[in-house]
């Protein structure tokens, strides 16, 4: 296995641990944690591929190795915005129904 494959293996494992947490946990905050783990695995993937295998894939603006890091910075920004919105929603939901268990939040079912 090449060096890149080791990084991709770690990213796959991280992503799937996050997926397991997202499906298995019922607390909204635990699900947000799992989601953020998946996002971190994706940015690890992007950075590893562009800095270890960006060889003959020239982008329109030249070498791709720093473009991957720019993508990762943007991903981190989106994750921060998502986390802020999600946590404030959880606080509002908790105030409304005194629970952040997703199985108690089924009013939209009709």
């Amino acid at each position, binding site marked *: 296995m090449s060096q890149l494959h080791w990084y991709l293996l770690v990213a796959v494992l991280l992503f799937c641990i996050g997926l397991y947490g997202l499906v298995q946990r019922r607390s909204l905050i635990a699900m947000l944690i799992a989601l953020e783990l998946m996002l971190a695995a994706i940015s690890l993937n992007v950075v590893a591929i562009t800095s270890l295998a960006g*060889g003959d894939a020239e982008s329109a603006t030249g070498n791709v190795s720093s473009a991957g890091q720019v993508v990762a910075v943007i991903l981190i920004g989106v994750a921060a915005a998502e986390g802020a919105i999600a946590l404030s929603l959880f606080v509002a939901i908790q105030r409304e129904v005194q629970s952040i268990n997703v199985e108690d939040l089924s009013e939209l079912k009709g």
Partner: protein
Amino acid sequence: MNWDAFLFGSSAALALIGALFAVSLKNIFHNILGFALALVGVAGLFLTLGSDFLAIVLLLVYVGALGIAMVYAVMLSQPLDTPRTPRSLPKIAGSALLAALVAMALWLVIRRAHFPGPPEVLEVAPQWIGRRLLQDYVLAFELISVLLVVAMIGAVMVARRDPGRRAPGTAAGTAPRPGAPR
């Protein structure tokens, strides 16, 4: 075993162990600590890839800002000793099976994929990232700033107590405000 392999192995172990703590422990506070540990491991992996700047940004934003915000949300939302309903074993096994199947599928794809070699010039210095952000990707950069401002204002709007709403229990519209004209 050389230094690079040691750094990679310890960072990867930190990331995976932290992630396991983050999804499997019962106490939500321990989950957040495991999440922070996992992100420290990912930052270490970024360091082994030569992206020092990205590692520091990851630590600041995820471990610093998001971790603290989660701790605040837990403190505001729920006492830590609230009894939790345990999930049934078939559901846990089903989730684990789903995650394992996805991992195997992804790994099969990765094994069969053809990756080109490393780039000739490895641009990892922070000034390259700054140049990219403000020249080639300036639209994405500006959109991210707008998104962060909107998210911040939206978070404040959603989470603050609505001053016009009555406390639960009092019938809406029956009690006149003190001082209101009859």
